[in-house]
């Protein structure tokens, strides 16, 4: 049995995996794991299927080669690209050691575009808030909080292993608020502060005034929200501003296991924090070469596969290192095969700042990267050396981290008041606000991001619509609905009592229909 960590989100749940290629893997619960007490969500329970995907091979221009050839070809090609036209992206399941080597390689090539999933948020908020983005608070603090605000996050669906902490807090007498476009299905909040999605699209600032009017909600609260590549900059800034004003503590959940390792990025390559974000990498024409580490772009992006393919095929150079084949694999000039996450040796940092050891034994991923570093800079480190750099950066010292303690802690726990006038960052909204207001009669499609959503596997095959929508479309149970924008998708529906009339919620990406977390669409009955 391998003691491993679930790569489904930033929580880092512990489990055992057992088995082999022939019989398949099996999940066994690791009740001693301090993050999750052995408990797993649906995604964690499906890890055997998640790992049962086609493996990546070493190739150059699609032809199978040895690892040596792939490494030297990757180095040769990477050296031939101008650093400013190069981007390094990893938003998936890599270890801190791999990321440290990755950062090292990026720096060695003089590249300033390194994205570990937080660049958009980094650019949204002032430097003083960056630490709060990187490191959360111990999850035990959630249980002890006297007041919780769920700020545009639905724990039961997005971070299920956080939900039990919130339930415990409630049992301990905490008051729970939620701020959302739609109230939680499980009704765990004592009070829901609803924002209107249409009004938000049309005039965000005006709609957000509702929050400023409810300081009582935020005062001294622990505010739980999420930072993903699509997190709306206006909402995120608003959240931090309200937190600063009300003395609240923010806890940013992250959808990717590697995202908290952005604190390595802050220490080892701070200049890259202003580099291109995930979206920008795929939208900015200046990027001519891309190195993907353990990242499936079709999973992490909301763009449809055709667009991703088109963009990737326009690149002069695409290098992919990972365990599994992705949409990028057949377009990549060089692919480098590493081991699956559960086989990796190394540590990860979870959302609360706990450093967790993954129980695999392979260091192949780090070795590949270090050999490339050698090709670029001439120096090559052993796994142990990389590891000690990681431990040093995380402030751990030499010994292996103890999983029972949260080792990486914030220096500052509360948000400082912010300078006015910050711009930039991601936008969650599909049309430019104000200028192109949602047409009347349109519906709004809201993505609810879950581990299945980001990994691109096991996603649900239906959308949720309101009772009123079902009524006005005269839907029958066996009908489907067609959701359209630039393109259209036909799929099943579920009727949800709590949805406002014009809102549609989807836990699956609707390729071509919506490329932002919230966008206007049309809804029709399809027999």
């Amino acid at each position, binding site marked *: 049995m391998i003691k491993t960590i679930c790569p489904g989100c930033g929580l880092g749940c512990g489990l055992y995996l057992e088995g082999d290629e022939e019989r398949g893997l099996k999940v066994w619960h690791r009740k001693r794991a301090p993050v999750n007490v052995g408990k797993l969500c649906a995604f964690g329970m499906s890890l055997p299927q998640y790992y049962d995907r086609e493996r990546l091979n070493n190739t150059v221009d699609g032809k199978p080669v040895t690892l040596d050839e792939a490494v030297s070809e990757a180095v040769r090609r990477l050296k031939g690209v101008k650093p400013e036209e190069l981007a390094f992206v990893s938003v998936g399941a890599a270890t801190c050691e791999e990321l440290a080597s990755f950062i090292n390689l990026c720096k060695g090539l003089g590249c300033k575009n390194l994205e570990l999933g937080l660049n958009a948020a980094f650019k949204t908020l002032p430097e003083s808030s960056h630490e709060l983005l990187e490191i959360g608070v111990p999850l035990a603090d959630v249980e002890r909080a006297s007041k919780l605000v769920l700020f545009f996050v639905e724990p039961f669906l997005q971070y299920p292993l956080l939900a039990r902490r919130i339930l415990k807090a409630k049992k301990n007498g905490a008051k729970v608020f939620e701020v959302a476009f739609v109230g939680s299905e499980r009704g765990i909040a004592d009070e829901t502060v609803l924002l209107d999605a249409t009004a938000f699209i049309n005039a965000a600032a005006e709609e957000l005034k509702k929050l400023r009017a409810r300081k009582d909600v935020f005062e001294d609260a622990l505010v739980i929200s999420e930072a993903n590549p699509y997190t709306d900059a206006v909402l995120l800034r608003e959240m931090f501003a309200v937190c600063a004003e009300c003395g609240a503590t923010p806890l940013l959940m992250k959808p990717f296991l590697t995202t908290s390792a952005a604190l390595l990025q802050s220490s080892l390559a701070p200049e890259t924090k202003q580099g291109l974000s995930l979206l920008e990498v795929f939208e900015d024409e200046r990027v001519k070469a891309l190195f993907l580490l353990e990242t499936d772009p079709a999973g992490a992006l909301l763009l449809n596969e055709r667009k991703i393919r088109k963009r990737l095929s326009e690149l002069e150079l695409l290098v992919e290192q990972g365990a599994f084949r992705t949409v990028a694999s057949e377009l990549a000039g060089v692919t480098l095969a590493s081991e699956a996450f559960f086989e990796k040796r190394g540590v990860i940092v979870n959302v609360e700042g706990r450093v967790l050891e993954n129980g695999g034994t392979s260091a192949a991923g780090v070795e590949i990267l270090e050999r490339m570093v050698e090709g670029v800079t001439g120096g090559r480190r052993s796994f142990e050396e990389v590891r000690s750099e990681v431990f040093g950066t995380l402030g751990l010292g030499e010994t292996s981290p103890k999983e029972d303690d949260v080792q990486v802690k914030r220096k500052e726990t509360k948000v400082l008041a912010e300078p006015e006038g910050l711009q930039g960052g991601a936008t969650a909204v599909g049309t430019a606000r104000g200028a192109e207001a949602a047409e009347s009669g349109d519906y709004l499609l809201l993505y609810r991001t879950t581990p299945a959503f980001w990994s691109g596997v096991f996603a649900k095959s239906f959308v949720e619509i309101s*009772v009123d929508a*079902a*009524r006005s479309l*005269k*839907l*029958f*149970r066996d009908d489907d609905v067609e959701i359209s924008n630039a393109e259209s998708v036909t799929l099943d529906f579920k*009727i949800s*009592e709590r949805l406002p009339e014009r809102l549609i919620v989807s836990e699956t990406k609707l390729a071509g229909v919506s490329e932002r977390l919230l966008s206007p669409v049309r809804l029709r009955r399809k027999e």
Partner: protein
Amino acid sequence: MAVVDEQMNEKKEWEPKVLAFCCNWCSYAGADAAGLERRQTPPTIRVIRVMCSGRIDPAFVLMGFLEGADAVLITGCHIGDCHYVDANYKTRNRFEFLKEFVDELGLEPERLRLEWISASEGAIFADMVKEVTENVKKVGPSPFRKSWKK
């Protein structure tokens, strides 16, 4: 049937919805007989015909409740008369489980009933539906029914 009620008339008197599983050989014919004999049966009943009461998985009954049925009737051939020799013994066995289950869950016992009805017992069928309807009216609408459902 459209999944959503077009218009809920709040003022109209509430009529319970009773779901009845009838076996093809006895109780369905019994229900038919009730009609042929022009016996007054309340319009509350919705019949699902199955080949044998032994086919009625307890999960069907539970799904009926979850869909919002105010009562569920399980009917079949008398013990010893089963068209498939002994399948209604299974029905009886399962009913024992269902009875305990429904009671533990907190649904009133009036909402679940097992009755053996032969093809000639139209009168018994009609009386049973009447009785169940009256009983269910006393205990009120199913707590499982969603307000927006038809």
